């Protein structure tokens, strides 16, 4: 297995706030790495820092052997990283079709084939093909945000709390889609719901107060009652 992404002792400031204070993590090619931590721990900021949206102020980020710490967001994305933000950031006045079109780096046959595949994962999107993003339900927005990151041939996907605010049945289909995507791409997933995280994750990184406290295989965390109680409040 090879390392696709490595963060080494990353610090991030936003304005005068020192938000990330030493985040380290690795993502192995083909695996799902779950980022865990309580509210405000710095999970979202970690993903934003990888994307260059809240750039690291120190430490290094390597992707596919290349130092991307200081690259602008668009170059990071063009390196093959797809981002599904916590608030989905669907383009509200664009239709489903247009949302996917904006995302497509090139509109060739391969991209169309991927789009068709994505639509089999999320049939709802096909149903509401001409509907504006702003008029979709919460679950459909989540699917659109994921589809948008998946129409390109991305090697890595950063997905931030895809289950947030969704009904259990919708969560199940979102998780099913993630399991499908996993066959084709490496994933870093933020997921608060522990059973969900345990179900799909291969490894985990636990962040607290902007700092990595522990990383390891998911099955180890499942057995580590002490760690779960201290940092995740799971009894």
């Amino acid at each position, binding site marked *: 297995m090879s390392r696709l992404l490595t963060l080494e002792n990353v610090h991030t400031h936003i304005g005068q706030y020192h938000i990330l204070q030493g985040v380290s993590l690795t993502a192995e090619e083909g695996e799902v790495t779950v980022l865990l931590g309580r509210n405000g721990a710095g999970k979202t900021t970690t993903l934003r820092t990888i*994307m260059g*949206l809240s750039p690291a102020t120190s430490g290094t980020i390597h992707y596919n052997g290349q130092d991307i710490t200081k690259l*602008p*967001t*668009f170059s990071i*994305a*063009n390196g093959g990283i797809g*981002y599904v*933000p916590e608030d989905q*950031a669907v*383009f*509200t*006045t*664009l239709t489903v079709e*247009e*949302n996917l*079109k*904006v*995302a497509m*780096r090139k509109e060739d046959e391969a991209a169309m084939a991927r789009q068709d595949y994505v639509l089999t994962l999320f049939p709802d999107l096909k149903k509401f093909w001409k509907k504006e993003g*702003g008029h979709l339900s919460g679950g459909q927005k989540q699917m659109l945000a994921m589809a*948008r990151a998946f129409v*390109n041939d991305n090697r890595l996907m950063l997905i931030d709390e895809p289950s947030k605010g969704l009904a259990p049945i919708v969560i199940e289909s979102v998780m099913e889609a993630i399991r499908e995507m996993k066959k084709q791409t490496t994933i870093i997933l933020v997921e608060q719901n522990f059973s969900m995280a345990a179900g799909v994750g291969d490894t985990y990184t636990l962040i607290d107060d902007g700092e990595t406290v522990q990383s390891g295989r998911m099955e180890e965390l499942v057995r580590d009652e002490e760690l779960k109680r201290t940092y995740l409040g799971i009894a």
Partner: protein
Amino acid sequence: MDLLLNLTVNGLATGMLIFLLAAGLTLIFGLMSVLNFAHGGLFAWGAFSGVFFYGVTGSFLISVIGAVLTGVVLGFITEKLIIKPVYGNHVQQILITLGFMLVLSEMLKVVFGPNQIAAKTPDYLSGSWEAGGVILIKYRLFIILVGLLVFAVVQFILKRTKIGLVVRAGVINKEMVQALGIDINKVFLYVFMAGAGLAALAGALMAPYSGVVYAEMGLEFAILAFIVVVIGGMGSFPGSLLAAILVGLAGSYMAYFVPSLSLAVNMILMAVVLIFRPQGLFTAKEA
């Protein structure tokens, strides 16, 4: 009847010129949240370079094209030199673009001399048509047509092309656009240059309409354009067309019926719209 029609045509023509100016302003505000008070300077440069090219070539069409190109080139320089260093800081934007507005006006005087210059209307657009006792001034109809044409073309680009999609998406969420691998700064530069070209087009069309060009004309019109951007909903392209027509018509009617109010009417219009719809007539994020 005749009078009302003429006032309406007048108002529409002025409205279209304001719209051409506001179109660029609203898109650059929507996309990058940039307040550009130098926009009127580009308008004035369009007017002067239009008159200049018309004098040199004798072709109105070529003069308009020359003016638009002048605007596009000036837009490129303005974005690189003036706007880029002050992204994200409105106070600095207002100060530096107002300053640059003055520089652009003064440069006009340096290049073209300090006096106002007469502008000619080409023969084929001079005079008027008379139909059923109604007199329609050709040049005003021409301006209205050009305005509608520009609206249709820009609307087509925004709705049907990839770059248009990117611009619309950027108005809604520019971070996400970048996270999809698009260099938003480059897109913004293009939009800025296109907006500058439209401002210059407005200037070039304004010149024969008012008969003279003078260095201060930019500031006057830029204020109207800003009012239109606010009324239309900052960042909304269709909103700016509607608002420009409103402002044009209101100005035209008021100047005739209540001349004492004609200067205040735009402010009143803006206040009324903002009381009932603080976000403007349209909003970029929902319209």
